[in-house]
């Protein structure tokens, strides 16, 4: 499972020795995030975001459990119970702001973590399973965050729930009954609020389980690294502890500084004012928007404005709403297939000139545009921009990536991770020239 030079746990303290004999939990931790896990020595700060995401999950569970002690999931009092937390519960305002902004920062961290995986093609063999579990975690995270946003039972909670569950009604034949079954009624009400609360409490623990699988799968091949070439020998790695615990500790400090600055000085910056208006089924907000982290997918959903018809015959094949729903789900499901859509034998974007250009000047601006349009009102020119960005999004993953990865000529790889870290050192220069690492077979 690990490299042959991985250190073995040798308990010195008699208590730990006792423990380790009866239940090798100390050994397990030692091998997972301790000195027993050899990690490539050249990881940059983008590799901090896995640990940060784990921290966010713990933060959300801790603040969430405290909030659940004071929250009432009943449509008549849910809004007031949240305000009770804000006003009358000791430090309740801190718990709630930490939880609400914690969700936002969880998504910031996750998006950077995913983008890192895409740039360095961390999804490629032999790490496909880590990636697949990661996409499952992302889907669970979206479901959890969506249901959490419904709980305060403000205007955006109610109308967001109505719009998102309304997506299921686009499915032919079973759509309407399915929506009613999901909501436990014809519109979001007490039944929906109660089940959303129940699931919002449950899913984080499902996510925690998936995170354990994610890390388990990671420890089989070990971490990838910015060069994308495999570890060759011991000099390529350092033990996770103390090297990466120290680096992650510093990264965590920087993360907390930014996150808590928002919690204390702009806690409503990332939310929508309408959610401080109690839910009112009789009054539709002027612009229904989900939380910012759903904007790209909301933009894709709304980009499909025209029914798919056969021109001049007027035969309708697919209604616009169903197309939008399919596209929105496809936008995430396509990530499942990345390991097989990308054929390049080289992992890291640093050595893939064409792929790199499409990543920086295609995918990232496209995502930025989708973010912007998803939060904007559903009017021109935002709709047109989101349509162009949606077209690029699908073209990027399904057309450009497979073609570029098979036609581009990768730049030469360094011989080893150690050499990449040392650069072309004076002694190595002559020896190393022209001696490159083997690309991986995909």
């Amino acid at each position, binding site marked *: 499972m690990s490299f042959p030079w991985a250190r073995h746990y040798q308990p010195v303290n008699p208590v730990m020795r006792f423990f380790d004999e009866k239940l090798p939990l100390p050994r397990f931790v030692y091998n997972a995030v301790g000195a027993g896990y050899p990690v490539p*020595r050249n990881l940059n700060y983008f590799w901090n975001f896995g640990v940060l995401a784990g921290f966010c999950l713990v933060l959300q569970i801790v603040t969430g459990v405290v909030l659940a002690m004071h929250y009432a999931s009943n449509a008549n009092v849910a809004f*007031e119970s949240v*305000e009770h937390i*804000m*006003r009358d519960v000791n430090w309740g305002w*801190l718990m709630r*702001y930490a939880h609400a902004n914690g969700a936002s920062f969880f998504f910031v961290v996750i998006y950077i973590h995913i983008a890192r995986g895409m740039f360095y093609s961390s999804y490629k063999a032999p790490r496909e399973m880590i990636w697949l579990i990661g996409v499952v975690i992302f889907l669970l995270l979206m479901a959890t965050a969506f249901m959490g946003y419904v709980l305060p039972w403000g205007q955006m909670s109610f109308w967001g729930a109505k719009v998102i569950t309304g997506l299921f009604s686009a499915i032919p034949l079973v759509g309407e009954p399915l929506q009613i079954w999901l909501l436990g009624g014809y519109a979001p009400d007490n039944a929906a609020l109660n089940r959303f609360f129940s699931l919002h409490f449950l899913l984080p623990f499902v996510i925690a389980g998936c995170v354990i699988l994610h890390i388990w799968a990671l420890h089989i091949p070990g971490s990838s690294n910015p060069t994308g070439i495999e570890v060759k*020998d011991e*000099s390529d790695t350092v033990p996770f502890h*103390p*090297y990466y615990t*120290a*680096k992650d*500790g*510093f990264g*965590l*400090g920087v993360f907390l*500084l930014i996150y*808590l*600055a928002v*919690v*204390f*000085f702009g*806690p*409503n910056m990332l939310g929508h*004012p*309408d959610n*401080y*208006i109690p839910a009112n089924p009789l009054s539709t907000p*002027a612009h229904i928007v989900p939380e910012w982290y759903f904007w790209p997918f909301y933009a894709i959903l709304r*980009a*499909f*404005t*025209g*029914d*798919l018809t056969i021109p001049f015959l007027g035969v309708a094949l697919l209604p*616009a709403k169903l*197309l939008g729903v399919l*596209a929105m789900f*496809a936008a995430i499901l396509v990530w499942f*297939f990345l390991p*097989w*859509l990308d054929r390049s034998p080289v992992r890291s974007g640093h050595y893939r000139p064409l792929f790199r250009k499409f990543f920086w000047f295609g995918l990232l601006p496209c995502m930025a545009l989708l973010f912007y349009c998803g939060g904007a009102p559903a*009017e*021109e*020119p935002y*709709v*047109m921009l989101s*349509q162009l960005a949606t*077209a690029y999004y*699908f073209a990027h*993953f*399904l*057309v450009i990536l*497979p073609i570029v990865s098979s036609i581009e000529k990768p730049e030469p790889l360094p*011989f080893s991770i*150690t050499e990449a*870290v040392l650069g072309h050192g004076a*002694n*190595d220069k002559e020896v190393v020239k022209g001696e490159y690492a083997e690309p991986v077979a995909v």
Partner: protein
Amino acid sequence: MIRLAGILIGLFFVGCVLLWSFVPGVATVLGQGSFVEPTAEHEFHRDPKHVSFQHDGAFGTWDIGQLQRGFKVYKEVCSACHSLKLVSFRNLAQLGYSEGQVKAEAASWQVPGVDPVTGEAASRPAAPTDYFPSPYPNDVAARAANNNAIPPDLSLITKARHHGPAYVYSLLTGYQPPEPELLAEFPDAAPGEGLYHNPYFANLNIAMAPPLAADGQVEFDDGTVSTVDQMAKDVAAFLTWTAEPTLVKRKQTGWPVLGFLLFATVLAWFAKRSVWASAKPSKRHD
């Protein structure tokens, strides 16, 4: 195979969004000559005015005198139509009132209760633990008295609107006759029966009559001249407090927390540096 299927699915979505959605959209825009159909709200709605408060910014603190004045404006003007359901009389202690003053203030408000002898519905003077009473018994009564518009509860109003405090201030001071250009372009935008023009309100016509009509309407106890502008500013500050009584405590807690974290992060940086100093890559042994 998977790549071929991927390319086909990709082309399907790209084709759908470009040919059936984007092209008709462009045709509509070209046909109408502008991105959006011009509406009165688009062209004549104004963003809130710029206004500053002592509680603004990372070091903001409450201006207790202003909150007390704002409370008086709420009590004498706003409370005739607007409830303040989430605020209780005991909370007024935070505005610098003594226990006795809070009790006396509460007792000057009538809240629904029951007759202790007959058990029939009656009203009684409020206690500090009571919440501010609603001016109307129910929504139907509120609608009936206000030209079919329910006056919103004000407890959270400054958090429930973009740029809340500035919005409240702008709305209260923004009543004016509709511009001639507006009426020339959109004759329908003229305020109807019982409506008042206000460019800071979302659809330009609001059912609330100008509540702060003249200077001196509320007499301030601290001698501040009660211009309409001053009253609007003070009540906006008061409503910022009702929306988030913990606002100043939050900011004051933030600084020591960030200060400690900054210190800890600097330490973590040095720790990281010293740990990694020992990891100078040894030479490759091949």
